[in-house]
């Protein structure tokens, strides 16, 4: 077997064939491979992103919970303060009211006593006049004896 044109012809044909493969067979194969690579890389990136956003959400959640807890505490405190204020206010108002009612009741009672005393006084004066008339046996003219009667009533 000697080196001859057959080998050259085959080599040329092979070169052309390799060129053909590089031009038409290799690119779609590589395209498929690269597409798969990109797909996988994208998938991994998406998974990563998901994990990261989950982490972020977790942090956000904790923060929000803390905030809400703080707010709740504040609100409770405010409410407590407010309740204390209301109770105090009510107590003060009630005290004042009681005082007022007491004063007015006392005044009324005094008035009533005074009126009763006045009434009593007049009745006693009348009884005294009646008694005196019976004793004297004649009518005492109320007009003429006004001074007398008034004196009497004052003395009682």
């Amino acid at each position, binding site marked *: 077997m*000697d080196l001859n044109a057959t080998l050259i012809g*085959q080599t040329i*044909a092979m070169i052309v064939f390799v060129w*053909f493969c590089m031009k038409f067979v290799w690119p779609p194969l590589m395209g498929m*491979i690269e597409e798969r690579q990109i797909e996988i890389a994208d998938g991994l990136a998406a998974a990563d992103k998901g994990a990261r956003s989950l982490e972020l959400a977790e942090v956000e959640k904790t923060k929000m919970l803390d905030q809400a807890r703080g707010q709740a505490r504040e609100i409770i405190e405010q409410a407590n303060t407010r309740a204390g204020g209301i109770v105090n206010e009510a107590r003060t108002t009630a005290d004042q009211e009681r005082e007022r009612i007491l004063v007015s009741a006392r005044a009324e009672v005094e008035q009533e006593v005074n009126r009763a005393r006045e009434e009593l006084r007049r009745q006693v004066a009348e009884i005294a006049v009646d008694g005196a008339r019976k004793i004297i046996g004649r009518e005492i003219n109320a007009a003429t004896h006004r001074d007398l009667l008034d004196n009497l009533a004052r003395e009682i």
Partner: protein
Amino acid sequence: MASEGAKTSAEYIQHHLKNLQVCQDESGNWIWNHCSGNFWAINVDSMIFSVGLGLFLAWLFSRAAKKATTGRPGKMQAFIEIVIDFVNSSVKGTFHGTNALIAPLALTIVTWVFMMNLMDLIPVDWLPWIAHAAGVEYLKVVPSTDPNITFAMSISVFILILFYSFKNKGVGGFIVGELMMNPLNPKDLGVPKILWPLVCAFNFILESVALLAKPLSLSLRLFGNMYAGELMFILIALLFASFFAGVAGAVLGLGGIVLHMLWAIFHILIVTLQAYIFMMLTIVYLSQAHEAH
């Protein structure tokens, strides 16, 4: 190579279709290339190229497996993943049993046969010329053009078919149920009992032929396709011989280049298709070995 009339075209073709063989003669000496008729001869070139390609694939896959990452795959990993995905989906689509052997077997067959077929695209004189320079007289570089190789593969598959048939159907279920009661079922046909052996014998002959045709067709299909393809390349190579001997020779040579290229491009299809067919039929046969009728 028909240069200087050293060889005629017929000799050139015959030379290319001869394996590098080694065997023992009557006196027990190891001899090269005079082994026709000796069953114990070994086709050294087929062995070297098929085993070499197998080792290359094993190395390639194990390297990819070791370097495999769950992150963004490299190009080699992505390619092998595509191949494995393809084989896996082929197996899943056809084979419905549970057998951990089928998918790796299919992967081995498709990649190995593909690589052996791919050797056909190397110009037919390159490696033989290098071998010749190294003092080796014959060299056939495409293992799948050697029926020994294709039969070895198909017989291995056949042994697996028999093994799984016996394993899944039992000796009785396989020999009686599958080989004797089909395709003419004497029970369904209402044949009197006394004639059953006759019907069963008839069935057995039919089914045995069908069974034996499986490995035979499997190997001969691959061998035939690749052998014919190789022969086409050799015939085209003859056109180059008179490249520098006048205008007619040059035209012939240029035509040879075009033909060689066209045939090589077409051969990409054949190479892939034959590997795929071998794999697919293996899966189908083993699937049948797992299924009851």
